[in-house]
C-alpha cells in the first residue's frame, strides 16, 4: 500500500526538530525502517514528518569518562564497523549482526531502535543489560534517563511526542567485563522469538553485577531477577529453573509461552558459556 498524505520538513538542528514537533501530529523520521513500513501499511497517518537525518553531530561514537556514547543517528552498519564499539561495548557488537538484514542495517539507527522500543528488538535489551543511560532533549531542556526507567510499556518509553532522543551512553568495558548474547529467530535477520543479553563483572570464580535481560518475552526488555543471583553463584541449573518465575511470556504467532520459557533456558546455558570467557 501507499502512505496517506503528509507534509515533510528537514530539521537543521535538535532545537529546530523540537520546534517542528510542536505541530499537531508530527513524527520524527530517523532511519525509517520501522516508521515508513507502518506508513506504507497505513497503520499510522501523521500530518508531518520531521526528518532528523541531516542534523549534524548525532552520528558519532565517542569514548569519554569511561563511557561509550553512541549518537542517535549512528546507523547499525556504522556501529558494526566502529572500533570503539567493538572494544568498549562488546555486547552491542555481538548483537548488531542479528538486527534485520544488511540493507536494513545500512539505514536503521541506534536511536530509532531505542525510541521505537519493539519488545523483540536487540538493542533495548542490550542497553538495559549494560545499565546504560539515554539522553533526551525536549521543550523543557535536557534529561538523562536510566535505561531501567526508559522502557515503560509496549512501544512506550520515557519519550513524549515532543522529545528527541539524542544519544545513548553505556559504561566502557574493562578487562573484567563479561558479556553474552544469543537469540532464536526463525530465519536470520528476523525479529527474535526469544533473545538474551547479559553483562557482568568477573569476580574470582563468581560473577558480580550480573544482569540477564530477555527480549521477545514481554512488553519491554525483562530482567531475570531470580536467575541472576543463582547464576552469579555458578548454579546454572537453579538459574534455568528460576526462569519459570522470572518470565511470563504470552503465546504469540511465533511460539507459545511454554516454548519461549524453554528456549529462554537454552539461551541461558549458551550465554553462561560466553560469560565465562574474556571478550576477545
Amino acid at each position, binding site marked *: 500500500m501507499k502512505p496517506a498524505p503528509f507534509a*515533510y520538513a528537514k530539521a537543521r538542528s535538535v532545537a529546530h526538530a523540537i520546534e517542528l514537533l510542536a505541530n499537531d501530529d508530527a513524527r520524527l523520521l530517523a532511519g*525509517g*525502517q520501522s516508521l515508513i513500513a507502518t506508513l506504507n501499511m497505513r497503520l499510522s497517518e501523521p500530518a508531518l*514528518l520531521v526528518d532528523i*537525518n541531516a542534523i549534524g553531530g548525532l552520528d558519532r561514537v565517542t569514548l569519554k569518562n569511561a563511557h561509550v556514547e553512541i549518537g542517535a543517528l549512528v546507523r547499525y552498519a556504522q556501529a558494526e564497523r566502529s572500533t570503539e564499539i567493538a572494544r568498549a561495548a562488546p555486547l552491542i557488537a555481538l548483537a548488531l549482526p542479528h538486527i534485520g538484514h*544488511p540493507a536494513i542495517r545500512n539505514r536503521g539507527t541506534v536511536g530509532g531502535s531505542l525510541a521505537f522500543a519493539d519488545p523483540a528488538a536487540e538493542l533495548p535489551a542490550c542497553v538495559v543489560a549494560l545499565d546504560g543511560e539515554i539522553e533526551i532533549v525536549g521543550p523543557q531542556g535536557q534529561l538523562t534517563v536510566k535505561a531501567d526507567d526508559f522502557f515503560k510499556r509496549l512501544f512506550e518509553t520515557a519519550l513524549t511526542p515532543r522529545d528527541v532522543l539524542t544519544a545513548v551512553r553505556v559504561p566502557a568495558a574493562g578487562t573484567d567485563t563479561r558479556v553474552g548474547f544469543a537469540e532464536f529467530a526463525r*530465519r536470520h535477520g528476523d525479529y527474535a522469538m526469544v533473545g538474551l543479553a547479559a553483562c557482568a563483572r568477573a569476580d574470582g570464580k563468581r560473577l558480580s553485577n550480573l544482569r540477564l535481560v530477555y527480549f521477545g518475552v514481554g512488553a519491554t526488555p525483562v530482567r531475570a531477577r531470580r536467575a541472576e543471583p543463582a547464576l552469579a553463584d555458578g548454579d546454572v541449573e537453579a538459574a534455568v529453573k528460576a526462569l519459570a518465575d522470572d518470565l511470563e511470556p504470552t503465546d504469540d504467532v511465533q511460539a507459545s509461552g511454554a516454548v519461549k520459557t524453554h528456549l529462554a533456558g537454552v539461551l541461558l546455558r549458551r550465554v553462561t558459556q560466553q560469560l565465562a570467557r574474556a571478550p576477545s
Partner: protein
Amino acid sequence: MSERFHDIAVIVNGEEVRERVDARKTLVDFLREDVALTGSHVGCEHGVCGACSVRVDGVVVRGCLMLAVQCDGARVDTIEGVADTDEIADLQRAFIARNALQCGYCTPGMLLTAQELLARGGVPSREQIRTHLSGNYCRCTGYQAIVDAVEAVAQARAGTKQ
C-alpha cells in the same frame, strides 16, 4: 518548509533528475513512475522482500523504506545504471550460467545486494553469502543456484578458481 510537495534534484545513474514530488512518494515509486526506471521492483512495500533494493550514496537500501524527498542531493544508482557500467557483468553472466533466476523479479535486488558483499573482497563462505542475502526473497529458484553464482564470482574475482 513543512509542505507536502517538494522540488528535488537527485543524481540518478550519473544524471541529474529534477522533479516536484509528493512527500509520501517512496524512492522506488519515484524511480519507476517519474524516472521510468522499472528495473527496481515493488513487492511487499514494508521492507521484507528486497525486490526494491537500490543504492543511495553507495550503500544498498530498501527503495520502499525511503522517501524520494529524502534523496534531494543524493546519488542514487539502480540496476540499470550499475549494469551499464559493467561493474557486475561477471555476476550477471554467472546468474545466467547457473540458472540463478527464473521469473527475474528478485534478480535486480539480488545482484545489487550480492555485489555489496563481493565488493568487500575476499571469498565469503556459503554461510556468509546466505546471511548477506537473507533479506532478499526469491520465490522461484530455491536460492541454491544464487549462492552458487555468487560464490563462483567471488572465487573468480579472487583469482582462486574459474
